[in-house]
């Protein structure tokens, strides 16, 4: 393999992992506070739609980002009304989010843009451009490794670096601040938090709000950086993959980052191995590589490679009277 290939695989890995990271961190915040989030997929999809629609209509990147975050936060709050306020089933509510998003984005897309559910492409100026697109070529003169790194790591847009910077930020938020301590406590033992005089509901609402903002960013990344418009079901299971990644990363930001990078790498490799012959003459089973993230997560959950322990109070609505 030559360095151009390595550079491009590395670049694809970094790119494909970005929405996973944003989404996995979103799910992580919510699940650490004890609220199951099956609806990541739906929130990301609706965020992508909002970014595409706002970007195409108003032609402004900040407006598109804000619209995506606002819409995803609204869905998060709907989830909150259902499961924090009214103590409904969190899994069912998440499933509802996904189905509503899958249907409503297309309905609104057709009604507003008449393009079969797509949004018109956003202008190049609105899209988030790589900061240093020819980093690979520029750095190649300093040696092959520099070229690969330039191509793979330094050629991305600001949103990509922002997503990666969020990993230590969320880590610090969870493990370095008083808010984080309380958030983790509320996911493990809400009675204790309540007894200490801290509002369980307020912490969960805060977590859900942050969750929505990150989901919105993940969705807008798909529209503003990866492709140029919204199309039907464009998240294509990424929300579920992010959910798998956060579980595979054992509900820890750094673990989730590792899982996202691994899943992104598998995705990048699977695209390139399409139709490639193995030494035996058979084709590489691309579907096996695509299914690998889910298989790995199941194996981890089954406790065969270490143990993934979910927050204790995950999925349980909190009732004060008990």
């Amino acid at each position: 393999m030559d360095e151009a290939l390595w550079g491009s695989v590395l670049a694809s890995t970094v790119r494909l992992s970005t929405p996973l990271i944003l989404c996995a961190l979103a799910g992580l915040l919510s699940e650490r506070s004890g609220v199951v989030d099956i609806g990541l997929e739906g929130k990301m999809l609706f965020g992508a739609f909002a970014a595409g629609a706002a970007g195409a209509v108003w032609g402004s990147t900040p407006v598109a980002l804000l619209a995506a975050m606002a819409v995803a936060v609204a869905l998060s709050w709907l989830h909150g009304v259902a499961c924090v306020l009214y103590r409904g089933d969190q899994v069912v509510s998440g499933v509802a989010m996904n189905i509503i998003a899958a249907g409503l984005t297309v309905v609104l897309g057709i009604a507003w843009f008449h393009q079969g559910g797509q949004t018109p492409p956003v202008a190049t100026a609105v899209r988030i451009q790589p900061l240093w697109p020819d980093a690979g070529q520029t750095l190649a003169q300093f040696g092959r490794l520099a070229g690969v790194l330039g191509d793979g790591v330094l050629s991305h847009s600001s949103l990509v670096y922002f997503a990666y910077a969020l990993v230590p930020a969320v880590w610090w938020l969870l493990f370095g601040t008083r808010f984080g301590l309380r958030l983790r406590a509320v996911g493990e033992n809400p009675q204790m938090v309540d007894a200490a005089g801290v509002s369980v509901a307020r912490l969960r609402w805060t977590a859900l709000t942050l969750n929505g903002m990150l989901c919105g960013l993940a969705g807008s990344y798909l529209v503003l950086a990866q492709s140029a418009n919204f199309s039907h079901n464009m998240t294509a299971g990424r929300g579920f993959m992010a959910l798998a990644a956060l579980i595979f990363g054992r509900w820890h930001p750094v673990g989730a980052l590792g899982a996202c990078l691994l899943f992104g790498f598998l995705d990048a490799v699977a695209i390139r191995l399409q139709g490639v012959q193995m030494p035996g003459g058979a084709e590489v089973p691309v579907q096996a590589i695509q299914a690998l993230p889910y298989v790995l997560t199941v194996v981890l959950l089954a406790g065969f490679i270490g143990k993934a322990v979910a927050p204790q109070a995950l999925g349980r609505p909190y009732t004060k009277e008990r």
Partner: protein
Amino acid sequence: MSTGATLPRWADLLLLPVVCLGVALLAGAAVVALVGQNPGEVMAALVRGAFGTPRGLSYTLYYATTFVFTGLAVSVAFHAGLFNIGGEGQALMGGLGAGLAALAWSAALPAYAMLPAMLVCSMLLAMAWAAVPGYLQAYRGSHVVITTIMFNFIASSLMAYLLVNHLRPRGAMAVESAAFAESARLPSARDVLGWIGVDWPASPLNASVLLALLAALGVYLFLWHTRGGYRLRAVGASPGAAEYAGIRSRRTTMLAMALSGALAGLVGINEVAGVSGKIVLDFVGGAGFTGIAVALMGRNHPLGIVLASVLFGALFQGGAEVAFDVPGFTRDMVVMLQGFIVLFSSAMTYLVAALLARLLRLLGPAKVRHG
């Protein structure tokens, strides 16, 4: 999913689902109005498309057949305290089982042997597919919601791999298996009604609809009139108490998931043996998720599930018809409505129940107090 003692039983069982459906329909109507169409007109066209013609009715019942299977699958697991989101993947495996049996033996076997063989194979493969998450939940503590989601993706990858690399006839472009021989096809409603001299339009409705009714009856008898069903519900109500009563809760958990999977697998019979006559990619098309909505609407009772399945069948068929009549209307509207129904008939049911209880108290205070 009881909503507490604030509602009298009749209201909890009958009124609440209807009101939840009403709220969901209102939310759907609001969106329809928002995108500039007349909700009343759409609703009328939808009902006409679903029930107005023999052909429409056949399609409605055909969709309902699939939803009965997935709805029963979700509810059996639910009665054991498990949330099976894996109906989608289990249904795929059911179709694969039926299809593999048909590809292997349909040229040699007559229909009276072939069709039962397909039935058994579809149920067995889907059962095995669901039993793995069941085992992992019971014995390894892995949460069944997450593992069944993962198994959905694994199933669809497996299906794509098998169809693209092995089952597709050489040189064929379409990603589907070879067609089965005639013995592996279930008689359609047109065939059956033709035998008794009724001229019925051609449609995908087939003999599986009877299988669906049998399955609903079977689930009812199993859950409420057998020891196994009692054990299953006991584990669902309280695993600890069931364990003290001498019920092996782990084994029951696995049994519930296996049974749930087998029911979802029957979708394969309706789609593969009843309609397409070959294995096609993605023949489930979200029916596994619709099963969740159906089970919630039907309050996890087989009779309720049959009624809710007809409702959803009508929505899907009627929605397809409206899409022809009303420009700008698509079936995604129905998908959205399905999401609203899931949201309001379960997650938001406490909100609706609280409002309803207040309303009932205003209307007749004496009746409500002993609910």
